[in-house]
């Protein structure tokens, strides 16, 4: 107990040294928090952007649809009602924001100026607006409503290739569910710019009923997309859906967007190496500071030995001091790091000074502002890492201090 009091007094006896040591540790924690926050935040942003620009967190569809596609691979009316009812049931327990039925098909789009292959996506307009970004990406005209039978929105690239604009007509032609070639004349209600150039060159968006009518699907749909509040619940929900509907295909976003999942793993790997070296840098800086402060006190330790403190007690004393310093540094570092994180989470780090065009990574539109994001587990991780490291390094320094007690040093400067 007396050692603890002695340690506490020692801290304030040399305020400058305490301040310098805690500053180094606290700033180390701050750097770690900000770097982790921005790294995690950019991933989260990419995933959010991806699930919002089409896939959703969980997809429920007919078996084989992901790999093979095909107009005839649908959910029957009965399956569709069963899935919709099941999703409604799970709404609260999984934090489901919305769910939307969709049809999609590769068809030929033509105007008097030519034809291009397009990707027709037919959606329930009101449900879709809740779960995806399509409604926000309308560049010209307006988004669909469920009364818009026979009207479509087209990607800006499609409009340019076919030389069509608002109010113009185009013809869609493709294989229907019965195997016959079907066609329909539609009118352009708006233009869409998703930010993905390749996607904008093929996208045609129609109301669900229009698509079902065109492709002879009656009440059938190809897939259900589910959007969640917390993406970490995507895999559990997908697992639950697989159990409930073993005859269907259920994908979480990693399975639906394998390229993005790979990209994120690669990026994670890079971040892992980056953080490893950052951590080493912080460790060395803290260690240097601690060593310097112990070295400076050799005379003091010699005095303590003369006063009767044995090596173990001196070791304990330095360790106690280090613990107190680490606690102070932790408090300070958390305050500084978390306020910087809060600022970056709210206002973000603008990186768009150089950007001129729309951005996409691995097929996902990307915002040029990076927002910080830290889970409680990450914060705890950073705290434990810095605290544990400081104590461990202090132990090495303390050992030196304990052995340094040489009475002869009392006379030296």
């Amino acid at each position, binding site marked *: 107990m007396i050692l603890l009091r002695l340690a506490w007094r020692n801290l304030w*006896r*040399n305020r*400058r*040294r305490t301040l*310098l*040591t805690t*500053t*180094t540790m606290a*700033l*180390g924690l701050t*750097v770690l928090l*900000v*770097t982790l926050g*921005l790294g995690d935040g950019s991933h989260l942003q990419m995933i959010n952007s991806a699930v919002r620009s089409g896939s959703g967190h969980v997809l429920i569809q007919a078996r084989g649809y992901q*790999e093979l596609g*095909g107009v005839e691979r649908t959910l029957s009316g009965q399956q569709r009602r069963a899935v919709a009812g099941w999703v409604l049931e799970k709404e609260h327990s999984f934090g489901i924001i919305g769910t939307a039925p969709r049809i999609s098909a*590769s068809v*030929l789009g033509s105007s008097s100026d030519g034809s291009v*292959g397009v990707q027709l996506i037919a959606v329930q307009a009101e449900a879709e607006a809740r779960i995806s970004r399509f409604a926000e990406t309308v560049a010209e005209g307006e988004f669909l409503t469920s009364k818009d039978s026979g009207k479509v929105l087209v990607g800006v690239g499609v409009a340019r*290739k076919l030389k069509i604009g608002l109010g113009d007509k185009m013809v869609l032609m493709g294989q229907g569910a019965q195997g016959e070639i079907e066609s329909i004349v539609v009118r352009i209600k708006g233009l869409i710019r998703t930010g993905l*150039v390749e996607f904008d060159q093929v996208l045609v968006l129609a109301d669900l009923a229009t698509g079902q009518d065109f492709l002879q699907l009656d009440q059938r749909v190809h897939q259900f997309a589910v959007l969640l509040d917390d993406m970490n619940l995507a895999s559990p929900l997908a697992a639950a859906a697989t159990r409930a509907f073993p005859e269907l295909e259920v994908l979480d976003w990693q399975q639906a967007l*394998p*390229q993005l999942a*790979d*990209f994120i*793993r*690669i990026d*994670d*790997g*890079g971040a*892992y*190496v*980056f953080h490893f*070296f*950052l951590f080493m*840098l*912080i460790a*060395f*800086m*803290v260690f*240097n*500071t601690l*060593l*310097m402060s112990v*070295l*400076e006190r050799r005379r003091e330790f010699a005095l303590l030995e003369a006063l009767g403190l044995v090596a173990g007690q001196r070791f304990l004393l330095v360790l106690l001091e280090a613990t107190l310093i680490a606690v102070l540094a932790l408090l300070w570092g958390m305050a500084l790091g978390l306020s910087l994180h809060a600022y970056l989470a709210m206002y973000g780090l603008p*990186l768009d*000074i*150089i*950007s*001129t*065009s*729309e*951005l*996409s*990574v691995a*097929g996902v539109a*990307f915002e*040029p502002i990076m927002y910080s994001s830290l889970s409680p587990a990450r914060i705890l991780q950073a705290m434990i890492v810095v605290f544990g490291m400081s104590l461990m390094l202090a132990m090495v320094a303390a050992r030196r201090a304990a052995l340094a007690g040489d009475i002869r040093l009392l006379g030296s*400067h």
Partner: protein
Amino acid sequence: MLFVLLGWRNLWRKPGRSAISIAAIASGLFFLILLLGISVGLKEQMLSNGTSLLQGHLQVHHRDYLPDRGLYDLIGGDQDALELEALIETLEAQPQFEAVAPRLYGFSLISTGEQSAGAQLLGIDPRLESRVTSFLEGMVAGKSLTPVAQGQVLLGATLAKELRASTGDEIAAVTQAADGSLGNELYQVAGILKTGLSHLDRVLAVIHYRDLQQLLVLRSWAVHELALRIERPELADSVADELNQSGLLPVDSLAQGWGELAPQLRDYVGLIDSFYGFLIGFISFFAALGVLNTMLMAVFERTQEFGMVGALGMTPLQILVTVLVETLVLVSLGIGLGLLISFLVMQPLSAHGIDLSRWTGGLTMLNTRIDPVIRFGWAGKHLVWSVIGMVAAALLASLIPARRIARMDPVVALRGVVEGSG
């Protein structure tokens, strides 16, 4: 001169203290170089993943070909002639170009008899193509020395599934030829491609460019595109400018770098750059502060010593000169040591890189054709700023407190009480 000697001697009087200061600078610099090295490596990896799959670093087209990719906008089409082989040879003879590959594009309906689908035909010279891009490595079925001979076709994986076609099957391609006639031809499926880009796998059909010329009823010099690989991809835009002014290309053609061809990639690379720029700046600041703190401690520790030499008659200026000499020696040794270790460690890291799949797990990496190896690179400009930051921090940490102590009454300093210092 005496004070320079004094400064030098002081350094070795307390070797432990000097060693810690040197270690602080050296380790700070070393880890900054490694962190910068990763960020350069990640950027280069991004760039090479973005350009080496299909695009190439540089492309040459007829100036009207992009963005609509019209069938008639051929390179040299305005004169109705092109010495294709001679042009490729001339370009390959230039030191800045490593490889050149000609390409021809077309749309067609592909049919197996029961199933049919629309496809983008890409006509290539298989021998030249594999030296510029890597998409031919994504072959999941079918193996031969030449990936696609004349009379053969490679299908994108999704397209092949839609057509229910497999290796050895025969498919028919039907298209509108350049002269307005209906061109059609049979090809044998020689392989299935998984490029890793889903939109490509859905539409891509690769044949020999000579076959495509015949199918489209075009002459034997007709190509839409030359894709080039250059030695330093980051200079693509200026290399393209030089090529445009060199007179080597037909007058109606235009060379463009990857940045112009894929502004998104350029922006993303820029984004990664400024993201890491911010992080590194932040971390450099921390490293400089770490050095500052260590050296501040070392200087304040010497309050009594400065009081002593002051009492012996050294002026504050003379004390400052000795401290300056000490600091400069420490800084030079620290930076020298840091650079030396960095060179030794960076050597294998930049040559072989770190294989990220060790941390990221198995992955479908081969299918997506993303290279999981980061090769560390030297970041010249950032590195200079980090060194300057270190030097400034060290000088600041020594000289300012030293000046304050030197100006103190030697008697007070001798007691060693500068603001609660023990």
